[in-house]
């Protein structure tokens, strides 16, 4: 660096000319690159502002990428859920009591159609985006639902599927006596008692008894299991044909729903269904009453109880909300008296393999689309809407309502009664009233719709804000072309003038004039 060597008596104007030329080069560079600043130091005081703007813009771009990913996921989810809603409607249509069709066509059809619909539901809930499953919460590398065959019929290593669980449950609920785990007895006395055969969760449970009056006294259940009710006939003469005694029982699929079985006194011999012959003595009447109960409950056992049992088995097998799967504990040669939880799924097929989140399924997958805005788009396939649909379809799929050629009319009637009972249960479970419960398909669709709305709003906000920031950044960094061009022109004029003046001055020396 020649500091003092630049002593050469060149006029100072030369150095200013050099600096003007350097300035010209800089302006040319600005014009060519379009940027006002071409090095870090040139930014000066706008450096801080520039850095902040760029940091903000970078963040926004990151969030916009997240928004795209979330929108993609939401569209896949919505497609699947819309179709599931249609299947739910179809399921409702197929479970219509008393719509047997000609020769029971509808009943046969119901079973097969339920199977097909169940397969479709399983496929929909196993939707994936490029290999990541979206209906399992954040467990995205395993299929949320096991396959149709595994669920219904068990798997190759001998674990039980739904059919086996349902069979076990039906046997447990019916009891070896075939009376739905109830015992009825008169025992030669004037009191006919009806009692549960033990303290266990199977079979009928007695809720109430009503009727009686002058001719009989009723004893109510006393609240401790096993319950029993009784009718003590007092005055046979006061008993007339048409007097009714009603027993309230609950079925295993829903212990809050009481159904009433009515026994009418009659003088017909033999008494019809649900009727008992008025005897001469209270003892005889009691005996007749007990016999009538036995016939009635045997019949109910084969029809309503079978369907209710299947529904209860579905509740046991398709466990939701973190509860374990329940199996009937074998108690041979006696009837089973307990359910056990198979928490390790050692002998039962696990129908749902995704994340188990009972309190906040939506929160299993969250994405951040803004500084403080997170959208929650997680869906687990064991939510109540999906589970109820699957339970209903599975129940229909494993039931066989086909009429064979050489069956009696009574068997046909029983099958029809089973179909009615199953359809009744299905209609209640799938009814539109349940749309507002948490986890129903409609409420899931609503929550996802709200998330999509939020995403859309945030996307618009990002686009606007990003545009504003880009404008501000351009104002700082872009070289204003007109200004630069004007400066170039003025500089050119000054340079030309300087060159002229320098040349003139250098000619003006006395040496030129000496002779």
């Amino acid at each position: 660096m020649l500091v003092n060597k630049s002593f050469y008596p060149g006029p100072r104007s030369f150095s200013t000319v050099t600096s003007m030329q350097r300035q010209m080069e800089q302006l040319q560079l600005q014009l060519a690159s379009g940027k006002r600043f071409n090095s870090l130091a040139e930014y000066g005081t706008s450096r801080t502002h520039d850095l902040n703007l760029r940091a903000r813009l970078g963040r926004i771009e990151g969030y916009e990428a997240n928004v795209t990913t979330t929108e993609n996921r939401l569209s896949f989810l919505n497609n699947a859920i819309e179709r599931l809603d249609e299947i739910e409607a179809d399921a409702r249509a197929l479970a219509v009591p008393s719509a047997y069709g000609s020769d029971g066509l509808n009943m046969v059809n119901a079973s097969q159609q339920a199977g097909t619909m169940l397969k479709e539901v399983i496929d929909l809930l196993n939707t994936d985006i490029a290999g990541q499953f979206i209906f399992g919460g954040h467990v995205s590398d395993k299929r949320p639902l096991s396959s149709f065959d595994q669920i219904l019929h068990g798997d190759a290593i001998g674990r039980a599927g739904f059919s086996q669980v349902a069979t076990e449950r039906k046997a447990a609920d019916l009891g070896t006596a075939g009376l739905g785990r109830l015992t009825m007895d008169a025992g030669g006395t004037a009191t006919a008692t009806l009692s549960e055969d033990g303290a266990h969760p199977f079979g009928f449970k007695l809720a109430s008894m009503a009727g009686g009056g002058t001719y009989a006294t009723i004893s109510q259940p006393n609240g401790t299991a096993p319950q029993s009710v009784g009718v003590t006939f007092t005055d046979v003469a006061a008993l007339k044909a048409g007097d009714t005694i009603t027993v309230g029982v609950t079925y295993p699929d829903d212990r809050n729903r009481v159904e009433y079985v009515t026994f009418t006194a009659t003088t017909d011999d033999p008494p019809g269904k649900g009727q008992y012959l008025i005897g001469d003595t209270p003892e005889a009447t009691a005996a007749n009453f007990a016999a009538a109960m036995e016939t009635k409950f045997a019949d109910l056992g084969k029809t309503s109880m079978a369907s209710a049992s299947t529904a209860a088995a579905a509740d046991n097998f398709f466990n939701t909300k973190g509860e374990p799967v329940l199996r009937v504990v074998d108690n041979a040669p006696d009837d089973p008296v307990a359910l056990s939880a198979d928490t390790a799924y050692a002998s039962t097929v696990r129908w749902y393999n995704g994340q188990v989140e009972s309190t906040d399924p939506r929160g299993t997958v969250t994405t951040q689309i803004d500084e403080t805005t997170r959208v929650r788009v997680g869906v687990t396939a064991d939510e109540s809407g999906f589970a109820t649909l699957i339970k209903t379809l599975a129940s229909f799929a494993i039931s066989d309502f086909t009429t064979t050629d050489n069956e009696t009319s009574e068997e046909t009637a029983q099958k029809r009664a089973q179909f009615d009972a199953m359809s009744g249960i299905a209609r209640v479970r799938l009814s539109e009233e349940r749309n507002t419960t948490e986890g129903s398909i409609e409420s899931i669709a609503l929550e996802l719709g709200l998330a999509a709305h939020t995403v859309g709003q945030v996307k618009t906000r990002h686009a606007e804000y990003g545009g504003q920031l880009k404008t501000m950044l351009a104002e700082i960094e872009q070289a204003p072309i007109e200004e630069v061009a004007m400066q170039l022109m003025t500089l050119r004029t000054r340079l030309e003038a300087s060159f002229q003046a320098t040349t003139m001055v250098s000619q003006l020396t006395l040496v030129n004039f000496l002779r």
Partner: protein
Amino acid sequence: MGLSSTLSNALSGMNASQRGLEVISRNVANSGTPGYHRQAVVLTETHYGQASQVRMGTVQRAFDQALQKQHVISVSDTSYHAVRASFLDRLQVEMGKPGDANSLDTLYTAFENALQALATTPDSMSNRAGALNAAQAMVERLNGLSGAIQTMRHETELQISNAVAELNRNLTSLAEINNRILDTAYDPAARLAMMDERDRVVTAISEMVDVSVSYRDNGTVALMTRGGVGLLDNQPSEFQFAIGGAVSATGEAGMLELVTPGGHRVQMNGLLSSGRIAGLLEMRDTTLVNAQNQLDEIASGLALAMSTLPSDTAVSEAAGTFTVDLSAMQRGDSFALTYMDGGVEKTVRVVASGETVTDPANLNAAGERVIQFDLSDAGNAAAALQAALGGAFSFGDDGGDGLTVAGNAATLVGVSSRITATAAQGGGLGLALFTDAGGAAFTNSLDGAGQKLGFAGRISVNQGLIGNTDLLVKSTADASLGDAARPNHLLYNLRNMRFVSENITALKDGGVRLSGRVGDLVSQTINYQGDTVARGFAQYDASTMTLDAVISRMDSAYGVDIDQEMARLMELQNAYAAGARVVSTVQELIDALLAM
């Protein structure tokens, strides 16, 4: 006699004109020579009796001591700022402009966004690979910048040694010139030329170091630095500089020493205030070190944000007594006790370290009192801490690896831990994404010079993650790939953890201390460096303008104006011709007289 005195007058006048012509010719010949001072003839009149004569007195050399001193100062300052500007220019090219593809702020934003994408879709392999790529790019840039800074420091040392060699040469030759000037046997014209040379050499020396010149009456000079260290009196002192080997952030730098003629050694690091060498030293020891420190802060912040476990790790509380599990602590990990002292909340931070510091002089930058201890054994640690912190707390040992703390004289508000993750899985949500050289964990250990010093040159991405990107997501072996807990934790730390730098730049450089989140650290660094470069350029421009002004003053004071010399030449020419005419007239008269 009339005629002879006329003759001798005319002859002396012609003599004087000759001498004058000689001086003019010398001026004109040297009009382009740098460092030449205009010479002028001083004529005096003498008389013997009735005859007066012109006698040439001395040749005077144009010299203004004040101007000379001003020049020397300007040259030093300009040289100082020039060398700084050249290095700062290189620094700003390395750092790049905000928004450039390889600028730190762009790379940091890309890294943060890659982590964001990872938190949104952790099960996507391309997102995991993208996060690692962004981390790698950031790390490579930090390494590159750090390497560039250390290379520049090494170059300053090379340039210092060159400058020192030149300086010594100049000092020796100035001493010789002094001696020759003292010798009055020299021809005056030669003496004047030597004085020009003397001034040139003084300027050359002032380019290297700041000098304060004293001009003696006999023409010799004595040199001192502006700070008062003698450079040349009778004999020159010698500068010595030993290059410090491979320059690195943690290595020793070379030392500049001055050896006086008597053998006394003076350390000059910090005694020079201006000149090229001082500029190089300033770059090596202050500006570039500041830049390196700031990069180290960024690297340390990145590594700690990724690997720090939540602050309640290893701390449990039962009925007012806190238990800290010391088994998880590595050197550099720490726990902090927050307590109330006279209504003011204070913090004591106990850092696991190989050295013991029990009574620090000052609070650290975050306002905490930092105590360093060996925390490998809970029992020993409890006893030592109790001795160090006195009655404010009561420390105990729970029999295993836990240290119990309870408030005694002071009310204990809380205990929080700052522990870095060790294993990739099973240790918590933190992940050692960035490691030190050789795969060692970065824990900001305070042992020795501190692990943070030079870390920007050593930081690298954890090699264990390169082949196994699942570890970015799976904090335990059986976690699912879709669980975004770990990426969310990493992102939360990156966006919220605050760091305060212990290093603060000098007040004259702005007194800047980096503080804030990692993104803030990056912005502040780029801003500060840009500012420094701009300031360096501005100072260089200002000093150059001052030097230009001084030089043009010197031009007009010492420079040769050709026109003036030509005019003078014409005068002398006429005077000579007139004198010659007088002589020839006298000659004719004498001839006429003799011819009588």
